[in-house]
């Protein structure tokens, strides 16, 4: 085990991937608690697809990937939130439409310029080779923002998540907090999808909080537990991916599934004692 670890950490690109990945998994799990409870889980999936489309277009036109995808995905996140509030368009249908459209546009852009290639495969399923210094900085900025948000505004986040109407009546600017969470989620997804892949990124948001909710019945407990579960699953996932030579995104998702099942069983047992 120690051998594998020292072997792993000898590679610069793996150290970068582990650093960014740990930060992203922490952010995703914290934001995920609020998103899952508010029934916004699918937003992660939709934004992952939008990020894929943006990434393909950026590469096709030789532009900096982050420069294109960050603003595009943030815009999409805000749009999806607005659609959720506007009852005339159903939020889940909107996400399905946006997901497949973004995917289609991205694939066409790539196949017209460079042909379907290894890039597409990496965007879909993730790769730990994808992280550069820019990702490290963005990941660091993001984690600072998310951790500050939860440390300073924890009570507001609880109130907004539990009861928007009550929060509004209390004088909280609910729209602002929803937008803030959407923007941070968008950045989390842009950074995280390069490791996790378009198809798997939403699991980083959804799984940890669902897992934590099996055992913990307080909001604080769920927030803390999902942060811990998420970072552990990420780290073990990356080690497993390296030692078994399996795709990193899939390895992390399967570990999250295992954690969920264990917590589910423990939660069911707890009811009997």
């Amino acid at each position: 085990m120690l051998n594998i670890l020292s072997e792993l950490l000898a590679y610069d690109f793996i150290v970068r991937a582990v650093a960014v990945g740990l930060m992203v998994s922490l952010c995703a799990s914290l934001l995920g608690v609020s998103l899952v409870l508010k029934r916004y889980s699918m937003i992660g999936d939709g934004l992952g697809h939008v990020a894929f489309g943006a990434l393909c277009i950026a590469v096709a036109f030789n532009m900096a990937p982050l420069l294109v995808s960050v603003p595009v995905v943030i815009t999409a996140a805000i749009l999806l939130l607005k659609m959720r509030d506007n009852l005339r368009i159903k939020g889940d249908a909107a996400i399905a439409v946006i997901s497949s459209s973004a995917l289609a546009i991205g694939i066409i852009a790539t196949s017209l310029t460079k042909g379907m290639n290894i890039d597409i495969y990496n965007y879909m399923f993730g790769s730990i080779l994808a992280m550069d210094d820019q990702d490290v900085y963005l990941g660091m900025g993001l984690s600072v923002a998310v951790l500050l948000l939860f440390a300073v505004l924890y009570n507001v986040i609880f109130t907004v998540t539990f009861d928007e109407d009550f929060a509004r009546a209390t004088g909280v600017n609910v729209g602002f907090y929803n937008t803030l969470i959407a923007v941070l989620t968008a950045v989390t997804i842009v950074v995280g999808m390069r490791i996790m892949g378009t198809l798997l990124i939403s699991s980083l948001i959804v799984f940890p909080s669902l897992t934590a909710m099996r055992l913990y019945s307080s909001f604080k407990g769920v927030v803390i537990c999902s942060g811990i579960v998420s970072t552990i699953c990420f780290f073990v996932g990356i080690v497993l991916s390296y030692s078994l030579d399996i795709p990193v995104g899939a390895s992390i998702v399967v570990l999250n599934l295992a954690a969920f099942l264990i917590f589910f069983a423990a939660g069911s047992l707890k009811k009997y004692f």
Partner: protein
Amino acid sequence: MTVLEAENVSVEYDGVPALKNVSFRIEKGEYLAVVGENGSGKSTLIKAILGLTELSSGMIRLNGGIKKSEIGYLPQQTEVQKDFPARVDEVVLSGCLASSGIFPFYASKDKKLAVNSMELLEIASIRKRSFRELSGGQQQRVLLARALCSAKAMLVLDEPAAGLDPLISSEFYFLLRKLNEEGLTIIMVSHDIEAAKENADKILHLGTNIFFFGSADEYLRSETGKRFSGENAKYSK
């Protein structure tokens, strides 16, 4: 002393009137029930009082130095709350958010206030339990305790007895009565006209082409009151 005054209040959603020319006033310590069928604008009126929706005309004024943050609010329960992992004391304490100012942290006086309102509503013994595991009646008490944390001047309730069985809802009305007798001003929206007549001092009846505002006794003698009590009696048989 008049604590809240509404004059010719109208609210429109996308040009469709939801509330038309409603006027009423409530004195300190009074218990006002807002009744009327679904879609008559009861919830809209509550939102207007709380400043959650804009008036298209008219005005609502708080008197006697009451601030908006001193109104306690018990909204209708939402889908989200059914499986929400939150402890009872976490939920109740969140009622203190309004008074916490720019820095949203709870001081020890807030925690004391939360404990007091839990004791008042007899839920102190379940304070460590999860909100989602409670019965409907217990959940409603928790939300009322949360509202009490910010109800320094007034308590506003939106259909507090919806979904409760008759015994639990009469217990709940009894609790409200008790709070009112201790001096708390209450505005309650309800479609339960019987309970409104029994408990409230004043009744505001909203509806298409119907409008009544006056004391509960006057309401019983009024055309509207007779008609709706009659209808209620018919339904209950």
